[in-house]
């Protein structure tokens, strides 16, 4: 793994490049390769080593430093019997003040400063070491007080361990901050833990901090947490109110909201992919004057060359390019194929993406294919090079329940393939265009509601069975991607941001 003492841009990556394939990782890869004159470093933040496989990307030459850290690896502690630690009263009072502010007045100007300064003391010799948190009377008392003041769940044991596990990553992040190479700009790709590392690094080194969000991290965590099965609810049958979110669920949601807010407040530039996401960032606490939109872009020349490889006519192939994970809602695509095949028996569905990220979900998808008797029509291809498959497909299909600005749609457009997508993220804008000149280009596909196999099938059949409509949508896609989503536009905008950051440095 490459290491360096200093870099130009240090990327803070949570659960993405280079160990996870996907849109965000491709974007990171694209950015690093798009600025060959800059020396990049990257900190990969993961949960546990066993959750990731090998690297999914070849490391670019200008990625001169890569560090991998796991937040929940080896939390079991050592065999050494712990001894009681005497906590610093002043620091513990500050910890209490911070929590009071987070509860009552997060917008207070001291909140971010207090958090960063306390994080900075969370090192082995600091006043807020991990041992202080784990083995001091003051920390124990603060947890007890917190339970008495705030918890509406009867179980103290669950409260105690929730607080412990919630805070555990901070000491890991502080250790990473200690080891980091010098950087001229810190650039995080999400809020959450990566964002908090950015907050800390900015506080310690006084360098510009850029945040580029693809999806909205806080929103995604919220949705995960609302449905998570691992969070306990110990309310009795008489206390249980189905309309009230259980306490620990609320606690975890607030935790990620706080991380998001603190990250937004510390960021010098906050970049969203499209306007709806920028609005969401404002709601979550991003200062308006620091926000902007920079849409994704693709290498139009590279993918445009594939158009000449296409055969005559519209291939009856619907291709879903993406990981086989619940957020892509592959099952809706498979269900839609049952309807498509009933009316167009020679149609095929290709699912081009790795299946190892969520094997149980992949198994469910395979079972569904069997249950719907689609073994002959639905093919799981695994990870594929887009340049190999795009010339052979008739439609790029996206059945996701959540997306930001999907690169695969743009890559499909550049290769002359229209899309049928669910109405998520900026997909409507990509298909029908933004009001004005973009909209005048025409529809480059169809948009349907999420989890609606019937609508997805109808829209796909409409395009596949009518070569004239297909050609119109294909041409509109090519025109749209060339005019608004070319890669050089993305690089120009980020070059300006980086130069601003470097100039501040000078």
């Amino acid at each position, binding site marked *: 793994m490459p290491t360096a003492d200093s870099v130009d841009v240090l990327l803070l990556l949570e659960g993405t490049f280079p160990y996870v394939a996907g849109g965000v990782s491709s974007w990171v890869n694209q950015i690093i390769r798009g600025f060959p004159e800059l020396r990049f470093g990257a900190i990969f933040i993961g949960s546990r080593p066993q959750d990731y496989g090998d690297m999914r990307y070849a490391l670019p030459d200008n990625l001169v430093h890569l560090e991998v850290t796991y937040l929940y690896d080896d939390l079991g502690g050592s065999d050494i019997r712990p001894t009681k630690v005497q906590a610093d009263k002043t620091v513990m009072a500050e910890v209490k003040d911070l929590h009071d502010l987070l509860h009552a007045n997060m917008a207070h100007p001291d909140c971010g400063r207090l958090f960063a300064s306390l994080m900075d003391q969370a090192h082995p010799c600091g006043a807020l070491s991990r041992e202080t948190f784990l083995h001091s009377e003051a920390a124990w008392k603060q947890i007890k007080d917190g339970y008495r003041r705030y918890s509406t769940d009867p179980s103290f044991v669950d409260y105690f361990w929730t607080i412990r596990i919630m805070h555990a990553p901070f000491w890991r992040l502080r250790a990473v901050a200690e080891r980091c190479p010098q950087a001229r700009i810190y650039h995080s790709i999400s809020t959450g833990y990566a964002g908090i590392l950015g907050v800390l690094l900015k506080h310690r080194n006084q360098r510009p901090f850029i945040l580029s969000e693809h999806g909205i991290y806080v*929103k995604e965590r*919220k*949705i995960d947490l*609302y*449905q998570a099965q691992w969070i306990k609810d110990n309310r009795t049958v008489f206390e249980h109110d*189905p*309309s*009230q*979110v259980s306490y620990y669920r609320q606690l975890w949601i607030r935790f990620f909201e706080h991380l998001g807010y603190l990250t937004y407040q510390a960021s010098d530039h906050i970049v969203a992919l499209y306007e709806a996401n920028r609005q*969401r960032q404002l709601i979550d606490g991003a200062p308006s004057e620091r926000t902007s939109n920079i849409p994704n872009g693709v290498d139009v020349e590279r993918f445009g060359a594939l158009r000449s490889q296409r055969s005559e006519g519209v291939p009856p192939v619907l291709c879903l390019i993406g990981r086989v994970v*619940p957020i892509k*809602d592959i*099952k809706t695509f498979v*269900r839609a194929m*049952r*309807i498509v095949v*009933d009316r167009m028996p020679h149609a095929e569905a290709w699912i081009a993406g790795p299946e190892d990220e969520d094997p149980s979900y992949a198994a*469910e998808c395979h*079972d*569904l294919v069997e*249950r*719907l008797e689609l073994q002959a029509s639905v093919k799981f291809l695994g990870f594929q090079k887009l340049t190999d498959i795009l010339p052979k497909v008739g439609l790029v299909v996206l059945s996701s*329940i*959540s997306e930001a600005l999907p690169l695969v749609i743009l890559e499909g457009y550049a290769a002359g393939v229209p899309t049928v997508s669910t*109405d*998520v993220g900026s997909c409507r804008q990509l298909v029908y265009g933004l009001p004005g000149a973009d909209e005048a280009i025409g529809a480059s596909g169809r948009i349907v*509601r*999420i*989890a*609606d*196999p*019937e609508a997805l*099938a109808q829209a796909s059949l409409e395009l596949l069975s009518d070569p004239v409509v297909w050609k119109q949508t294909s041409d509109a896609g090519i025109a749209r991607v060339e005019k608004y989503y070319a890669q050089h536009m993305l690089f120009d905008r980020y070059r300006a941001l980086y130069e601003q950051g470097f100039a501040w440095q000078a």
Partner: protein
Amino acid sequence: MKGVYWAWGAVLGDLAVFMGPLPHATSDAAFVQLWLLHAGSCAILATSSLVLMPSKNRATLHWTWLLLFCFAAIAPVLGSLCILLISYTTLRQALDVHNHAKPQTVALPEFEARSQQTSRAGQGAIRSRLTAQVPSNVRMQSLLTLQAVPSRVANPILESLLGDETDDVRLIAFGMLDAEEKKLSVHIHQEQKNLETPLSSRARYDCLRHLAELHQELIYAGLAHGGLKTHNLNQAWKYLDMVLAMDEQHACGIYFLKGRILLAQGETQQARDAFTFAMQLGQSPASVLPYLAELAFEQRAFATVHAHLQNLAQLQVASRTTAIVDIWTGRDSVLRFRDRRILQHI
């Protein structure tokens, strides 16, 4: 209660000291020995009595101990006995208070087995609290309330939220629907796997029947529409045909299921025949009559609806159905429509 034994031990020890030879000796050593032994007894008694004290008297621990010690020391044996007597009295009083605080048996609250509350949160009420104009926290609460609503009622509402403009609402609605569908799919997958293994005739019959029921349930719960509904109905039919081929004794439940599948397909005449046959075979009228009434209603045969519901009025049925029966049979006590606060079946 070990403190009591120590206390009595101390009293006996003190008594032994003063009944023994030491008080009669005249040497300084005997005098010191006497007072040391007496002080030791008093200390043991004070400490053990302290344990016997009610908690409110133990707040000022050191002073209470000193008082007890002095009391026992000033009046040998007698003081100790007095202390024990007082301790016993207060302890007994505390225990009496404790006894009185024991939970008393109270009458159980009256719960109606067919609770009316479940249907109060009717579809209309929940839907109105989920519209886009409602504050997001109220919408989220209403959405979560659907977890406690039967899936037959909740799923169409969740389905309508899949196109909502708010991401959070849309995705949670999706998650809830997906979880419902997954529950049934897991069962279908398990039963299909079972079917591939060697099974006894009875087990194979049960397995096929479950598969037909599960496919029908996907439709009943509103989880399959259009082409998928047709596919699931075909699957249900496939398994039902296999069950019917094995069903020599004509189980009423199978014909009841057949009626429900036919009803889902819109084959009303055949559905009615199947329901009637199921009832003849022994299917409970409480489960069949509502379907027959529904079929009659769709054909605008209101006299037949009335007759079916009149029969239903004699039976124990769910509160939701009771409301309909009450209206149709005139058993309803509300005279004017505008006085009716809720229509439970809506």
